[in-house]
């Protein structure tokens, strides 16, 4: 497996260099999921590497407050879960030695012994009980206390080194969430002693990961320092210290990376792609991803009609958006599930995807679909986007072109970021608007977990209050399906319904945009850096 991924990486490097030589006036060639890298070649020992977080400074290092790019990219190297997401998307036991599941409602974890926190204290079953219990305690205020945590009926210590989690409803995806901060273990005594300052520069955290927190120079950078006593001797970090900066401006990021002032970064901004593709000191690597750009319907206006959404999707040139707005670093979306975003039943998911409508523009089919519409088609459709992010305006203008071709009107509506944030949380903010954009990602590489939030009644990302008994039934069946193949088959049915109902219009699947200076290598290229200790793999290139 490893060899194959490295071979893939080689092919990609060739493809990229060919791309740079060919010029880009024609738009980059269409990206295929098979071209995307999973890892980069392993590296050697290194004293210091510098990294950047293009989404800015983490607000907290407390794992239960880490639910976004900036926080998770850092915390992933500090705190570990019972399970661990691997670069190939498999979920492996980590702080748990093994996991046993007699049925999808019961999860039995055997806790690993001889694991030590950074301060040398041994990790006990009580620490694990305490850490999992924090999710359920409203006063701890976990940002992860959503549907998955809400489904936990009880957490019991069923042996000296054994913990059993019982769920209200069966959920076969539960174990994969033990690789996210929901399953992270922190030291109980330290958490209690730190009080309100926990997770801040003064209070800090106490975890078991391959790095601990060094100097945190607020507003500028945070240092990760190698944990030389890491419990997993085979996975001790290769780089002694990693300094992570918080540069958010695209031009500044291009300059810092292309001059070597910063060695590497995930998620380099779209505005930096052209610059970094021609950089002489390193290369831009495109990785397998779990991200998707989509238009979310609010359930209001013309866009509330599924026939209108279907017509708009068919009329929009999503391949052009992938080639121009994303400069060839994204792939047109054929589904609400990003391509290749699964860790099991690959052949079943591939088959399911192949049966969906292709991504090519089809004006005739779009006009046909529009005939089923029952709403007033003369009303303009407003799609809201954060005005600071101009690439959304480019995406919406491409959608608008398609809309014009089938007699609809789409208008972009830019709002300040502060106001845009409210669209995800406040139904009042959404009132009076048809739709809004999203750059979304899957928490775990299980399509079921993602589709459930969008289509399930009361789901966390179900913004148009979609409710369909058939879909809910299938979601429950899939949740109970412990067998991966059975589950994948049911998820394919759900996906079909999702693409007929289209609560969101999927636009493109962006790949991971990883820049590495030639002096470093080793980090995963796939979308696992939010939960996998990527910095521990970072090393010197030979």
């Amino acid at each position, binding site marked *: 497996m490893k060899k194959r991924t490295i071979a893939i990486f080689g092919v990609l490097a060739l493809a990229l260099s060919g791309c740079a030589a060919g010029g880009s006036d024609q738009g980059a060639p269409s990206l295929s999921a098979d071209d995307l890298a999973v890892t980069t070649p392993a590296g050697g020992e290194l004293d210091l590497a510098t990294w950047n977080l293009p989404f*800015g400074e983490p*607000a907290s290092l407390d794992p239960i407050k880490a639910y976004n790019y900036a926080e998770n990219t850092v915390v992933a190297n500090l705190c570990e879960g019972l399970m661990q997401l691997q670069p190939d998307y498999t979920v492996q036991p980590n702080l748990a030695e093994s996991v046993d599941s007699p049925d999808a409602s019961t999860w039995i974890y055997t806790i690993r012994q001889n694991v030590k926190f950074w301060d040398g204290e041994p990790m006990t079953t009580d620490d694990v009980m305490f850490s999992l219990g924090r999710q359920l305690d409203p006063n701890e205020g*976990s940002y992860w206390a959503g549907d998955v945590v809400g489904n936990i009926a009880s957490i019991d210590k069923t042996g000296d080194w054994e913990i059993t989690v019982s769920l209200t409803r069966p959920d076969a995806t539960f174990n994969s969430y033990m690789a996210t901060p929901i399953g992270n273990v922190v030291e109980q005594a330290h958490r209690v002693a730190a009080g309100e300052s926990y997770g801040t520069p003064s209070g800090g955290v106490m975890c078991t990961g391959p790095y601990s927190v060094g100097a945190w120079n607020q507003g500028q950078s945070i240092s990760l320092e190698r944990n030389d006593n890491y419990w997993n001797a085979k996975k001790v970090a290769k780089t002694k210290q990693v300094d992570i900066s918080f540069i*958010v401006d695209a031009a500044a990021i291009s300059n810092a990376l292309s001059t070597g002032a910063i060695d590497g970064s995930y998620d380099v901004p779209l505005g930096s792609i052209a610059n970094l593709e021609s950089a002489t000191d390193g290369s831009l690597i495109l990785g397998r991803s779990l991200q998707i750009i989509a238009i979310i319907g609010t359930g209001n206006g013309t866009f509330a009609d599924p026939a209108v959404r279907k017509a708009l999707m068919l009329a929009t040139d999503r391949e052009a958006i992938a080639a121009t707005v994303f400069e060839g670093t994204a792939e047109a979306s054929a589904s609400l599930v990003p391509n290749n975003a699964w860790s099991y039943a690959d052949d079943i998911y591939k088959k399911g995807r192949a049966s969906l409508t292709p991504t090519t523009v089809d004006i005739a089919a779009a006009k046909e679909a529009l005939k089923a519409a029952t709403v007033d088609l003369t009303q303009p459709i407003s799609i809201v986007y954060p005005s600071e992010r101009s690439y959304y305006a480019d995406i919406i203008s491409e959608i608008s072109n398609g809309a014009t071709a089938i007699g609809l009107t789409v208008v972009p509506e830019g709002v300040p*970021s502060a106001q845009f*944030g409210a669209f*995800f949380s406040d139904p009042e903010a959404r009132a009076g608007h048809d739709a809004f954009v999203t750059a979304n990602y899957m928490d775990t590489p299980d399509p079921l977990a993602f589709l459930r939030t969008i289509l399930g009644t009361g789901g966390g990302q179900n913004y148009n209050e979609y409710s369909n008994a058939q879909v809910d039934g299938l979601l429950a069946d899939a949740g109970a399906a412990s067998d991966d193949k059975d589950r994948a088959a049911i998820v394919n049915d759900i996906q079909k319904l999702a693409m007929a109902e289209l609560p969101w219009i999927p636009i493109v699947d962006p790949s991971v945009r990883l820049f590495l200076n030639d002096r470093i290598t080793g980090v995963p290229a796939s979308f696992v850096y939010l939960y996998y200790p990527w910095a521990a793999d970072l090393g010197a290139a030979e």
Partner: protein
Amino acid sequence: MFVIRRLLALAGVLVVSSFLVFAAMYAAPGSPENFLVQGRTVSPEVLAAIREQYSLDDPFLVRFWNWITNVVHGDFGQSLSNRQDVGELLANRLPTTFMLVSLAAVVIIVLGIGLGIIAGTRDGAIDKIIVLGSNLGFAVPTFFAALILMSVFSVALGWFPVFGSGDGFLDRLWHLTLPAFALALPSAAVVARITRTAIREERDSEHSAMARARGVPGGLVLRRHVIRNSMLPVSTIVGVHIAGLIAGSFVVEYAFTLDGLGTLLVTAVQRKDFAVVQAIAIILVAAFGIINLVVDLLYASIDPRVRLGLGA
């Protein structure tokens, strides 16, 4: 007496402006706890616990009153998103913004007034070049100047760092030089123009013509009559521009990734982080008021008539 009256007025302005900012934040859409969880769906119990911890359910006036009484006691409250004392959060940022604005002020005074005097006293090519340059400087937006300066001096020549604000005085100076020039450029251009015009007016005025006619040496006329008199309008415009720098520093801080107040303010506004926004608003208003006060005091030392209260 004059100073005390001005300071009291400033305190009044601070209370009113902080009330307005507080009210505006309150009226803005979205609720702080939803920004905290970044739009993720969390259980209502967790949201309720967060509201409780930060007293978000208290009525508007109660919250403002609590806030202002705490400020009087020197407690600026706690940041919602960072869970840190605002004082601690600002202590890291203030030196950067202070030094950036001070450096930019030096650039405005030295470059703006210096070039203005040269252009005002010489005719011909030098004057034309300076006028052209100041037109250009005024027309170039700050963010664009930042990009150009960075790509020439940091990326191509490698003389200055690409990002960050450095540690220690000299390192900071090195890190903040380009940002200060980018920030000062438009203001320096305006100051140069105003200085040039003022100098030319004074040079042609009757009292300097008279002095020259009396045989007072040219250099002395220039220093005592022309430059000193022309500094009255110039000091006003310099003061206004320096005060404006504090508010305008955000663009430069963002472009050069400096850990200043501007970037902190913008993120805090986006997250509805009341305590941080309020504290920075107070600092901005206070700095504006104090700089204006200093300019007025400077007026008095340049023009004795102001001090005597006879009016200009």
